[in-house]
């Protein structure tokens, strides 16, 4: 009835409940990993898991913004490849660490802004605009690298990004910082508020005097920027730039974001959920590796696990909208 209970608390509760159950799935996986393999719950293995999760996690943060704004970005994977190639050409490497990083970020940002401009000002469907970018960026990366793997010669770069601070690998620091920054940007700033608003009802947002087009372009720019950063991280991890970097990262990122509770139709989503989603996928892979499963069995089970995780997670929210 109008006055009495507070549905807001209720809704909050239901989001928290979803996050909690998602976290439950993660904990369950960790327990399974620990039981099935002695080497799972060791510092060095957790390091490995986190370092592997780091580039995907960074991409997923950018993807969270795009999806909350009711968009999609299929291009991140091949933008990663392009940025990794561009930042590791001999010419770029000759300028050293800082220029390499800036170059990777700039390529990502540029590609993202082009996506954003096509979607916002060119009024293209995001799926198609970013698919076109996906194809073109892949071609450009192959063209620039002459289809060769470009090894990093700059030792400073490797020393910096492969190093650790306070016992935590640099890549994991980057992931932590990006997730935290993403969370703040999404939940504590005008920018984030507007992103939710655009995803929820773009027309109403426009009529509230917000420049929806510019904002949309910027959101894709963020996704591109995170792809550029992921490229830097992948280059550090593999010591090389390659047009094959980032393959399927777009699907992994979208899957992680959606499993994390962000709605593909926009207007609703959480950064913490995205992080848990990324970790779930990485942990699953690690458990498979620990247990020497062959790819076919891995794949069959991965699909089934996704279904179960999602169904478990939605059990609560289902009761809610049940009519």
């Amino acid at each position, binding site marked *: *009835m*109008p006055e009495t209970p507070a549905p807001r608390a209720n809704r909050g509760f239901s989001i928290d409940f979803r996050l909690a159950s998602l976290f439950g799935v993660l904990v369950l996986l960790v327990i399974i990993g620990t039981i099935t393999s002695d080497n799972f719950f060791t510092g060095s293995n957790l390091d490995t898991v986190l370092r592997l999760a780091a580039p995907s996690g960074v991409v997923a943060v950018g993807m969270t913004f795009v999806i909350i704004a009711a968009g999609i970005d299929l291009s991140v994977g091949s933008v990663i490849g392009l940025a990794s190639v561009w930042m590791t050409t001999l010419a770029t490497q000759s300028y050293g660490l800082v220029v390499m990083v800036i170059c990777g970020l700039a390529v990502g940002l540029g590609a993202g802004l082009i996506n954003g401009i096509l979607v916002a000002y060119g009024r293209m469907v995001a799926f198609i605009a970013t698919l076109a970018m996906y194809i073109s960026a892949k071609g450009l990366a192959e063209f620039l690298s002459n289809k060769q793997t470009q090894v990093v010669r700059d030792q400073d770069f490797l020393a910096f990004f492969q190093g650790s601070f306070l016992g935590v690998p640099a890549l994991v620091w980057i992931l932590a910082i990006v997730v935290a920054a993403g969370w703040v940007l999404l939940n504590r700033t*005008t920018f984030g508020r507007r992103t*939710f*608003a655009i995803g929820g009802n773009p027309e109403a947002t*426009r*009529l509230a*005097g917000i420049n929806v087009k510019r904002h949309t372009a910027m959101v894709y720019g963020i996704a591109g920027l995170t792809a550029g950063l992921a490229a830097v991280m992948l280059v550090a991890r593999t010591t090389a730039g390659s047009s094959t970097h980032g393959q399927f990262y777009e699907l992994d990122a979208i899957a992680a974001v959606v499993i994390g509770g962000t709605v593909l139709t926009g207007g609703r989503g959480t950064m913490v959920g995205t992080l848990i989603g990324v970790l779930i996928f990485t942990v699953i892979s690690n458990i498979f590796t620990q247990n020497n499963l062959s790819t076919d069995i891995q794949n069959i089970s991965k699909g089934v696990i996704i279904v179960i995780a999602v169904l478990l997670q939605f059990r609560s929210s289902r009761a809610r909208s049940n009519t």
Partner: protein
Amino acid sequence: MTGIVKQFPGVRALDGVDLTVRAGEVHCLLGQNGAGKSTLIKVLAGAHQPDEGEIRWQGEVTTLPTPVAALRMGVATMYQELDLIPGLSVADNIFLGHERAKYGFTRDRQARKEATALLKRLGHPEIPPDREVGDLSAAGQQLVSMARALAHDAKLIVMDEPTAALAADEVNNLFRVVADLTAEGVAVVYISHRLEEIREIGHRVTVIKDGKTVARDLTADTPTSELVALMSGKRVETVYPVREESTVDESKEVLKVEKLGRDNEFADVNFTVHAGEILGIAGLVGAGRSEILETIFGARKADQGTVSVNGKQLRNGDVRSAVDAGVGLAPEERKSQALLMDMTVAQNVTLASMRSYSSFGFTDRAKELKDSRAKLEDLDLRPSDPRRNISTLSGGNQQKAVVARWLVHGCRVLLLDEPTRGVDVGARAELYRLIRELAADGVALVLVSSEMPEVLGLADRVLVVRDGRVIHEAPADELTEADVLDMVMEGSAA
């Protein structure tokens, strides 16, 4: 229906409602926004499952697990939220679910013919049956909804606020059809916030409040004050506003519209609004009033003419420039044009003024909550908790939140498009009071409404619009409802 209970998480929407409808009668359901009327009829239509209670149909207890069950039994429903598929044609919408088909293949010609016949019966043979519903005006869509209910050959037709989007002549058409139906023995459940309509066609009245039946078997001529008292638990003297002392400050010309026009929509619109003035725009649905407001606001690009606020010209087609100049718009379609259903009330209220709630881009959430709570209390929005999700508010309260958005922004010009559509009597009175107070504070207001008494009772000056042209302008107290109706229908400007 007896003892119906329906609970949503956190809300007991129905708390033991009884409703008895007899064949051949028009049974009116009254209640404030959020009283549970729509929920009740959704239970009756099989769209919601009741948690408790019993439904009897022609004496026998039944259950309605799906909408199909209700349709089969003979209950057709026109829902309050337009329940049409915008991308489908008029005919397809009318026959959706019981398509005119043979072996699964659609028989479009037959469907078109029958659709035309139904629309003719509703007095609108001119609506082409193969036109996409999304292209029709709200009124046109309401007619399609009605045709769809008729197409079912039902014994009971439920109409949830069918006249909210209709103008006077359309309402009369509807009443004629309702009279025909009841004459054939069909029962009608009729929901409306316009009490005079109930007097005109209603036979019996049930009043619900807070999910409970508070009065039943009232006759249609129960005095207004008594009905309102039952609905709201307090006394409201009159439904429509009565004229009051004007607050116009002639010296301050706030909004100036010159030679404004958009191809094929409206042309040559000129007017000025002073501080503290309420300018009413009267006209029929489809006259182009919404377009004029949206063009002033910059939501549509003008093809000719200019708009200036306090002497400064606004950039054409740029909402931002209008908002910065202190113009606000409470649009006609609350849901699609104004509200962010996934957000809290506070977030909706501050959407247009995020800049004043942020430092270095970070939102000041404490200030946001404080200010919106204060505004909500000013507007007597209930419940006034700004952290609630806006989708849980009733229509009238949502409308107040939209107005609050512009008050928080500190606007000097407020454009109101059908501000009382779907708003209950009690809330209406509050909105009227609010509009007056705004004028008294020196805000320039433009009010578009399809309800003549509202325009005439509130506005200082009235523009009459017909076919996209201003055909008359006069101080409100020089006009009567009949004059205006004459003008909009015949176009015989005085």
